């Protein structure tokens, strides 16, 4: 019997934010990220029979999303290749220069930083998963989307004191969850 079950009707509520965060940190384009997440859900739905239940639903969805992101880059790279061909060296003697241009810049820490940010983002989402749905929703709206108190209260039909109680519980649980590895 499979260890993990598949419940597509719950995918959007459970995983859309996590998949979106994973995608936006890699494609840096909100609209494109949304499209890729949607493509991932549709593709996953069509290949549900391939889900063996060995990995969690989330891991399985991410593996499909990763392929979608790679395809996206392949697509834009192949378009780029057709549009412009940049040749920086013309003779064999110039080859050294061409290679030198491509040596990694030791002062460029962006890749390393984004790796740490990725891990941190994953850890935050893992902790958010453990919160009750309402606490997670309020925490995301207030802390990640940075919406003001009034907007959230109107949207969720709660009072400001309700909101602060929920925020307090969410923050305490999140801090306890994150404390082990990140504080």
């Amino acid at each position: 019997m499979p260890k993990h079950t598949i419940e597509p009707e719950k995918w959007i509520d459970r995983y859309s934010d996590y998949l979106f965060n994973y995608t936006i940190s890699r494609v840096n384009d909100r609209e494109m990220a949304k499209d890729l997440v949607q493509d991932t859900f549709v593709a996953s739905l069509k290949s549900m029979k391939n889900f063996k239940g060995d990995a969690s639903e989330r891991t399985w969805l991410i593996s499909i999303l990763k392929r979608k992101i790679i395809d996206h880059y392949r697509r834009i790279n192949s378009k780029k290749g057709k549009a412009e061909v940049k040749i920086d060296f013309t003779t064999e003697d110039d080859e050294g220069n061409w290679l030198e241009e491509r040596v990694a810049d030791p002062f460029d820490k962006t890749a390393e930083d984004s790796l740490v940010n990725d891990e941190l983002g994953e850890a935050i989402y893992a902790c958010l998963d453990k919160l009750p749905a309402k606490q997670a929703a309020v925490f995301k709206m207030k802390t990640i989307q940075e919406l003001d108190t009034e907007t959230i209260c109107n949207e969720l039909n709660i009072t400001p004191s309700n909101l602060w109680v929920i925020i307090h519980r969410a923050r305490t649980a999140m801090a306890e969850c994150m404390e082990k590895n990140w504080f």
Partner: protein
Amino acid sequence: MKEKKSFLFISCDEAKHICDKSQYKEASFWEKIKLNLRYTWCKITRAYVKQNKQLTTMVKKSKIDCLKNDEREALKKEFEKELMEQN
């Protein structure tokens, strides 16, 4: 009987509440003074402030993002169509 609120001294729970508001820049100047006063002598408040600030820093550092509610709803609508077709 309702407890009379002190002008300057606040309870630990109140301090935590101000600290939460402060993470979103929603604590008033006067509230911050009251929090700071309690911070000087209350170990629990100090521990909470430290932990709460760290959480704020971590979330900011991660540059984490999520879908807006209307974006999530749109995604849900589209996906539900696919689900219907599948069934």
